[in-house]
């Protein structure tokens, strides 16, 4: 499975990597902002199976990134992992096309559960 982690914080990407390691064999790519993520997606030889996206990032934020991804790709599961907890933000993200929404602070277990939930829904669809 290939996963793209998009977050400007290296610490947060490391935490997500450790959590995803529980899924078994996972190939992880990282991007520090939306622009870098788009270039990774475009240059990737194989499509990603899952993308975790932070909202607040320099150059291009997570919301804009979701909109750009969904212009071309309606199927890859996207999970917003963010400190933004307001209802309006959550609705905006869902409207933009995210499949799940995780609010920081989270425990490793809660993030893992959301990831598994998202992947299971994708498989069932």
């Amino acid at each position: 499975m290939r996963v793209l982690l998009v977050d400007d914080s290296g610490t947060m990407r490391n935490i997500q990597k450790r959590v995803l390691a529980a899924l078994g064999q996972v190939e992880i790519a990282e991007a520090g902002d939306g622009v870098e993520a788009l270039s990774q997606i475009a240059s990737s030889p194989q499509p990603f199976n899952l993308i975790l996206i932070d909202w607040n990032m320099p150059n291009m934020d997570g919301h804009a990134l979701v909109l750009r991804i969904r212009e071309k790709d309606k199927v890859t599961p996207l999970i917003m992992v963010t400190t933004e907890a307001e209802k309006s933000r959550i609705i905006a993200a869902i409207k933009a096309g995210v499949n799940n929404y995780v609010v920081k602070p989270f425990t490793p277990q809660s993030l893992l559960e959301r990831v598994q939930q998202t992947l299971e829904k994708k498989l069932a669809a």
Partner: protein
Amino acid sequence: MPENQIVLQGPVPDAVSAAFLPLEMLIGAGGAAASPAANHYQRHPLSIAQTGQAIARVLVPEAIELGPNVQLSADGREVVATVCGQVRMSGKRIWVEEVLEIAGDVDFSTGCIEYKQDIIVRGSVLDLFKVTGGGTVRVGRAVEAAEVRAALDLLVAGAIAGKEKGRCFAGRNLKAKHISNATLEAGNDVIAKTEITHSRIICGGRLRVDHGALVASHVTANAGVCCGVLGCTSESETLVEAGMDEFLRRLSLASIPKLQADLKQIEKIQQTVKPLMYNQKSLNPAQKEKATELLCLASDMEEGNRQAIELLQRRSDEAAARSKPEIVVGHSVCAGVTVRFPGLEATIPSPMKGPLRIFPRRVLAEPRIMVSSDDHRKPFALQTRRWSDEAMDALSRVLPGRVSTVAS
């Protein structure tokens, strides 16, 4: 002009009788020998091949003969080892032997030996040399002030005469004729034929000197001790700990302080993060990310602790299953010998004649060290002291109800 001088004389080689090498060796003497930095103890002349390693290039295919554990590569140009072992050549025959055999002593002619499988040393292992085997190590004569490690059994036909520097380790059983001035550790039994003197012995199984003496030594044997004579009349101290697992004790000492420090740290993190989790709306993004970091750190530490406790539990159960707190003496016990069982200790007050058995038992709810012998109709109690073992006390706090001692 100098006169013509003959420097070489002989028949002119012809195409038929020209000398040739059927093989060009691709591996040389042991790794350490190749390094100019290696000292003389580390150098050795043995060629050790790994499984699948090309050991020789074939120059004249019809002039070679393949022995056991080798095969030709797909293109027929190389001889490849099919097992890990010592490369041997004799005439046109090449093969790999799984067992490493040293015909004489382990000394400067062989250097220190490190080998993944069984080792046979026909002679002795001399002072300051090291032998490390991934299987069973057999020594035909003696182990002197050397270090010998065997992942399985260590079988010494002669003595282990450590001269206070010798150290022997065996994953399973360790056998020798005589053991003196050495430090020995074995996962299972330690068996000496004639005598053990001035040594430190640790074994996960039983220590047996069935017909000989155990003198001036410190022994810790989880499955008990059996000897002919215990102690000596001189002032050299003999201490025997039976039914106690030194390896578990060491593991406890190594892991419990970290475990306890981690538990404190986890508690501290939880105390910091808990109020924040109830009031998430008041947190700024940086605080939320910090809280996530702390939660993940606590989760990692909890997982580490869970694994450490599981390991301690498993080792503790294994040790308990093998524990046999008894000392069996065939001939006699000298005064002054100290015997220890989990939580209890006693010193032999006066010489006792065997055959006898020393063991712990509760007498009227009070734990005692008892002696039963043919001379006495009923077992009698020695003056017993409580003995506190820091490591096992800490372990019983970590695994409440799992670590039992006679004293508890």
